[in-house]
């Protein structure tokens, strides 16, 4: 430790940052884990292996992963179109991209219900199905990958692509070996945000999914009903599992991102 010397200013800055982070993140997280642990290992295990809870976790995490994969592809594509192409209505689309993110989620839920619910003007009724959960996740997570990739793509040096072309690389090879490695950190960051948002989603799907136990009930709904039934230990146990999964996903994304970034 003796080799690391902080000046008074940076020491103060680090102190404030740590205090802030502790108050807002570390202490509440520790409290959740502590509450989950209060019931002992058996209590925890029983809570998370409960048929209904396990189904909710599987549905939530599975759908969030699937949605993240879709976002990685579609988000990169949309960012590409926004940065590289010029078309009428581009500015409008640019602004509209953020709408799913800016909209209060319950409003998003209402929009989805009126469009894809029992009275759907399109004749598409996905109410009370898992497709409703998927759709709601897709809707609210759309902007994340687009918004993280867009600035990085805009900053990319076009000459690098021209250099690859003059060396004989096709458009596809240039994308895979030159552009993708440069975008990988941004895509990974967007994917992490998208997954986290999916796992925690509540407002946009409660109206459309019907919250049917074992079928369309997601973890956030499950946690809420545990609390309403005064079973704080159960809620904390589910929260702890989600916390662990989210952490694992973020670490995995970082590893993938580093691999892709170095490959080329």
């Amino acid at each position, binding site marked *: 430790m003796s080799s690391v010397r902080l000046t008074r200013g940076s020491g103060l800055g680090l102190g404030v940052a740590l205090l802030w982070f502790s108050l807002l993140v570390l202490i509440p997280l520790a409290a959740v884990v502590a509450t989950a642990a209060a019931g002992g290992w058996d209590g925890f295990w029983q809570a998370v292996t409960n048929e209904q809870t396990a189904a909710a976790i599987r549905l939530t995490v599975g759908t969030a992963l699937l949605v993240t994969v879709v976002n990685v592809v579609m988000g990169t594509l949309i960012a590409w179109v926004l940065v590289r192409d010029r078309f009428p209505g581009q500015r409008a689309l640019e602004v509209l991209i953020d709408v799913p993110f800016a909209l209060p989620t319950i409003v998003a839920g209402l929009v989805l219900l009126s469009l894809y619910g029992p009275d759907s003007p399109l004749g598409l009724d996905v109410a009370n199905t898992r497709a409703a959960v998927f759709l709601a996740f897709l809707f609210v997570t759309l902007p994340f990958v687009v918004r993280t990739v867009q600035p990085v793509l805009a900053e990319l*040096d076009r*000459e*690098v692509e*021209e*250099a*690859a*072309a*003059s*060396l*004989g*690389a*096709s458009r596809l*090879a240039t994308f895979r*070996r*030159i552009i993708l*490695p*440069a975008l990988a950190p941004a895509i990974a960051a967007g994917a992490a945000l998208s997954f986290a948002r999916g796992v925690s989603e509540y407002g946009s799907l409660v109206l459309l999914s019907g919250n049917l136990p074992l079928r369309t009930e997601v973890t956030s709904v499950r946690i809420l009903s545990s609390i309403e039934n005064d079973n704080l230990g159960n809620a904390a146990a589910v929260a702890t599992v989600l916390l662990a999964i989210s952490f694992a996903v973020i670490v995995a994304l970082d590893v993938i991102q580093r691999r892709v*970034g*170095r490959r*080329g």
Partner: protein
Amino acid sequence: MSIEVTGVSKRFGDFVALQDVSVSIPSGQLTALLGPSGGGKSTLLRIIAGLEYADAGTVGIEGLDATALPARKRGVGFVFQHYAAFKHLTVRRNIAFGLEIRKRPKDEIRRRVDELLALVHLEQFAERLPAQLSGGQRQRMALARALAVEPKVLLLDEPFGALDAKVRKELREWLRRLHDEVHVTTVFVTHDQEEALEVADEIVVVNEGRVEQIGTPDQLYDEPANDFVMRFLGPVTQLGDLLVRPHDVALSPGADDPDAVAGRVARVVRVGFEVRVEVSTGEQVVLATLTRTEFLRLGVGVGATVSVRVVPGAPVVAVPGSVVRSGLEVPAR
């Protein structure tokens, strides 16, 4: 002829970048495209490389019509002003890129890259990332990367433009020696006339989308086709209606030379080995540069009367729109 550009025109919106340009570039030579910024020389180079397409005209490379070929099929190496390094790849992988795309065997790639690393003196930097290299080293890496695929022609767009003066000078001497070793047909773009005169076998002067003159450095300097070439290739001064190089202006004391113009020395500035004398002839100020020895032999100071004339045989160009006055000798070529 290695590169045959015929009747090429290119517009960007309202801006005319090239206007009916035809150039033949011989095989195995080092050719400079020289001209001021925005004159169209980079556009011409990019059209030869296939990074830009001409609105009209054709481009032939080694006898093959390349006008519609995409860049990746033209067999050209391109070096950019700002290196265009693949930032996530090591120096070795950067140089190997073109060979990997061509799916050459691994050991062949390794051998070829080792050769190139030695050629550009970057052996000990093979495993570094481009960000860990200096500008000059990055540009040498970019050159090795372009040479790796054994291009038919090597095109360099202001290759030393982003480097500081000292490295720039070193690198252009090095490029000349490298070219004498490798002998690949090379075209480089520059706005620096000294760089072009020093390095190139042949110079194409491009201005406002047109070719002003094509020739060897000597031809361009000694027989400029027009006032633009004359002005662009070195310092000029005006005597009567003629443009002349200041070092081709001769001074003699007194006003008794009937073939010369009389004037008064207005200012004398000494810069190192060179003395710059400004002579006022009444209607204009003529600049003459002399060596210190010549100036001392002349033995005049500010206010003295001198005769000014052009050294016989020196290149002169009439200022456009003017009629050469009688009484002032136009030296024969």
